[in-house]
């Protein structure tokens, strides 16, 4: 396989599940360059999570290939053990664990089954906490921290995992307004660190704020991919969400409104 720049490559992917009316991907080809942020946008149930799980290698496509291009070499996804972090939307959090112990679990790929974490693992955890400004949370239990803090701790686990690609299911939507903005800047910071990020959302404005590229899953299960400004046009979004939508500008900020004539 020809490999140019470093990227995540999906080639002619086909995948379907359930009855014939359910979600289906036909002949999808995507190439996501490294060190970029991509947003997956679509209605609930349109298959955003499924797309992430395909990129993780957790779901196997019926046909096509998924893999990484790294330094001119193609590596199929199933050989990328531990280098992709996945942060599910409704992750079952072991609430009685301390933040430190939870972060340490990011080191699972580096610690043998019958071994214990070493000094190096603990010092990596300390670095991660400093970087994400969560040093003060260390000994707290996960049940004692806020939703925004928990998001940062989960990102910390992905950093501890030393993943190149971070697949993030709905990182922003359910946060309070103030933490939303923090999360957006954290995603940008991750990009600066050299991470490739793919996240899902059903709010196009989030994509505009942070995503270089967008993957739009439309109503008729077509998948559009390209620079966010091109993909998230008024027409595409209206077609995707089945309601006439229009971007406007208030105080220099982009807003999304439903057209009045319905």
């Amino acid at each position, binding site marked *: 396989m020809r490999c140019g720049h470093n990227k995540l490559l999906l080639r002619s992917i086909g995948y379907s599940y359930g009855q014939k009316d359910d979600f289906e991907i036909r002949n999808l080809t995507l190439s996501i360059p490294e060190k970029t942020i991509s947003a997956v946008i679509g209605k609930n149930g349109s298959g955003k999570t499924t797309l992430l799980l395909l990129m993780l290698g957790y779901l196997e496509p019926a046909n096509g290939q998924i893999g990484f291009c790294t330094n001119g070499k193609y590596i199929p996804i199933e050989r990328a053990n531990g280098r992709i972090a*996945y942060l599910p939307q409704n992750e079952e959090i072991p609430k009685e664990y301390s933040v430190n112990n939870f972060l340490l679990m990011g080191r699972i790929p580096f610690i043998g089954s019958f071994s214990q974490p070493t000094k190096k693992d603990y010092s990596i955890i300390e670095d991660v906490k400093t970087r994400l400004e969560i040093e003060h949370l260390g000994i707290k239990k996960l049940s004692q921290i806020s939703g925004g803090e928990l998001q940062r701790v989960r990102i910390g686990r992905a950093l501890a995992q030393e993943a190149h690609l971070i697949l993030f299911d709905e990182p922003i939507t359910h946060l309070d307004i103030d933490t939303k903005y923090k999360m957006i800047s954290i995603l940008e910071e991750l990009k600066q660190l050299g991470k490739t990020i793919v996240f899902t959302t059903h709010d196009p404005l989030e994509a505009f704020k942070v995503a270089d590229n967008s993957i739009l899953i439309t109503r008729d299960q077509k998948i559009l991919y390209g620079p966010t400004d091109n993909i998230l046009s008024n027409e595409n979004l209206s077609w995707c969400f089945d309601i006439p939508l229009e971007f406007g500008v208030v105080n220099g900020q982009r807003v999304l409104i439903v057209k009045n004539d319905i």
Partner: protein
Amino acid sequence: MNRGITRYLLIGLFFLLIISLFIGRYPIPDQINQIFSNQLFANLIIRVRIPRILFGILVGFGLASSGMIMQSIFKNPLAEPGLLGVNQAAGFGAALGILAFDSSYFIVQSLAFIFGIISITLTIFLSNNTKKKERLSLVLAGISVSAFFSAGLGIIKYIADPLDQLPSIVFWLLGSLSNSNWTSLLQILPIIITCLLLLYFYRWRLNVFSLDKEVLFSMGLRNEFELVIILMISVLLTSSIISISGIIGWVGLIIPNIARVITGQNTKHSLPISMILGGIFVLVSDNFARALLPGEIPLGVITAFLGAVSFIILLLTKKEFL
């Protein structure tokens, strides 16, 4: 902090071990120097009490760590070999061995293990195929599999020779360390020590089962191979113990939960603490079994009594319990 607790508990266990040597119905010689010169007493200590005490500690270590493994793997603080049907099934296998193969160690042990594996497989299969919530379905599946093998045990008791086999099966089912001697101890020692060491070194890794399976996949645990191996080890450990000691309940349920109250969730600490506490619990219970009444009380009766009492106390006083 946890290291300190481990040290104190180990010291406690050691002193308990020494004290247990002198507990029993045979009177301790009046003068200290007679302890060594009294041939009968020395024989009693070396041939009977030492193997029994060592076995008791291993039983506690084994049952408590199996309980901890199952509770972690199934994310359910009620999971333990008894609840998942392993105890009854291994008991059934061993009783079958006593009945049909005249108590050959190897066969009794193998049958106990085979039926232990069958029962846990059945329980997991049933639990995965119910429409109930996962925690509840595991408990319900375990109860039904357990009941199934109790029925089998009932049949074996009915068939067994009432003069010879039945009393030994019944007494053995109530749990007892009285079958332990150097021969039986040395026979299962390699298996038990190997299993315990593997589980001990697995103590940090056991934490991973608290994460979602997609997250584990992303960390390179791409299938359930490791989970199955660890589960097999703990079933092997439990059934080897049961094949000699009979069914000793409550250790696997109550001890890991007490350990978690002391150390918190991190299995790196709670698993070793659970092992030591299990050893102390079984040893104390067996001392009562040996010395409380003129005749020996079945160990399972004592552990059930002490277990239930501590369970109720914790339930009423500790918010973080279960």
